[in-house]
């Protein structure tokens, strides 16, 4: 079993204009930097991107927005990005905002073979429009459909050629659930190790969910809100 591809350019082979992509990360934490750069270079257009956030103006998914390669965003929070706001208000960009927990669970369900589920989140709000409502334990819930995508791009700390992944810190976030929901899941890792080096008890994403893996380069890992306390 060897899922290693040479680089990001190889890893994104098959992505075409008009496709739906999932991209892991929370803010700029744990985003697939190498794959995003390769997608920008490839010039694919009219993408639908499922990602919790939309990056900032000059980093993360903001780079794809700048080049107007994204047609639609499916996200939970898209602040901190002026170009995004401009494209959305002018109608160039279609945006589907969904509650963060529902977004995570919709991806997990997609990867787990569960087509839809009921959740209380969003009941009585505009998120519930057009969705079936059902009461369980006397509480109203809305029906949310699973999400899948032909490609999912995730970023992990360590991985092996089987596609087994370990994430670091809160860079884990949406990456494991999106890895599950991609038909072709591409993992970029900071450190590639030999099979057996990862303790089977501590692997976060089993390699079965990953189709392509490569060692990323030049990680910038930009910090969005640097907050510190003074040394006493």
């Amino acid at each position, binding site marked *: 079993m060897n899922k290693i591809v040479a680089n990001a350019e190889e890893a994104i082979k098959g992505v075409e204009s008009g496709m739906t992509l999932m991209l892991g990360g*929370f*803010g*700029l*934490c*744990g985003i697939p930097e190498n794959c995003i750069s390769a997608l920008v270079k490839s010039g694919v257009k009219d993408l639908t991107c499922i990602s*919790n956030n939309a990056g900032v103006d000059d980093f993360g998914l903001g780079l794809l927005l700048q080049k107007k390669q994204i047609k639609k965003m499916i*996200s*939970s*929070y*898209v*602040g*901190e990005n002026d170009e995004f*706001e401009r494209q*959305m*208000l002018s109608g160039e960009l279609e*945006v589907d*905002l969904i*509650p*963060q*927990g*529902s*977004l*995570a*669970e919709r*991806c*997990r369900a997609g990867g787990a073979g569960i087509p839809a589920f009921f*959740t*209380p*989140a*969003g*009941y*009585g*709000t*505009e*998120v519930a429009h057009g969705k079936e409502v059902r009461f369980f334990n006397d509480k109203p819930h809305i029906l949310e459909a699973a999400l899948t995508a032909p490609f999912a791009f995730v970023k992990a*700390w360590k991985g092996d050629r089987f596609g087994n992944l370990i*994430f*670091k*810190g*809160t*860079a*884990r*976030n*949406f*990456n*494991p*659930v999106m890895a599950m929901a991609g038909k072709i899941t591409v993992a970029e890792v900071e450190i590639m190790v030999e099979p057996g080096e990862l303790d089977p008890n501590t692997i*976060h994403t089993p390699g079965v969910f990953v189709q392509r893996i490569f060692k990323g380069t030049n990680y910038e*890992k*930009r*910090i*969005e*809100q*640097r*907050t*510190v*306390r*003074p*040394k006493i």
Partner: protein
Amino acid sequence: MLDKQGIAKRIAQELQNGWYVNLGIGIPTLIANYIPEGIDVVFQSENGILGMGPFPFEGEEDADLINAGKQTITALPGAVIFDSSNSFAMIRGQHVQLTVLGAMEVADNGDIANWKIPGKMVKGMGGAMDLVASADNIIVAMMHTNRKGHSKLLKQCSLPLTGVRCVKKIVTNLAVLDVTDQGFKLIERAPGVSVEEIQAATEGRLIVEGDIPEMQF
């Protein structure tokens, strides 16, 4: 009248030993600075950590360790990291005992609006809708009136809702109020604030029963 720190300090008095607590962005974040002596709580951040600690010392920031406000944080001994679906399983499954969040409007039936001003601010709801739909105990931390001086405690929210009939308690710069079936029930006054001032700043139904004590710090 309280400032933002005062609101945080008053809400900190609500914390109970052994609770898991999710703090929203803004005033709620400040609560972590005022945990009462002898109270042991664990802070959850919905991007995937339990046991969130204070901001790191300068030079020790880690891009791979942030909170839901995207701020760099630290992890306390006993902390645990998990993915987003597990994080919201904790929230939806009511394993987190208290959620504190800010609001733009709260109605006297417990409805809350805090995510969207049509045509002006469309940043998204993040985890707020999941949090308010599921948490048993929701406290709103906010100023009693908005910048124009209009009440934020209303008969009915005018902005798009985040959740319905979910807010249990509100702590503002003027008062502590419980949300009841009959409307906002005045529990405490901020230092130096009269019942009349609170009545004047509250548009929704306000219940005032007997003498209303001043907050104690």
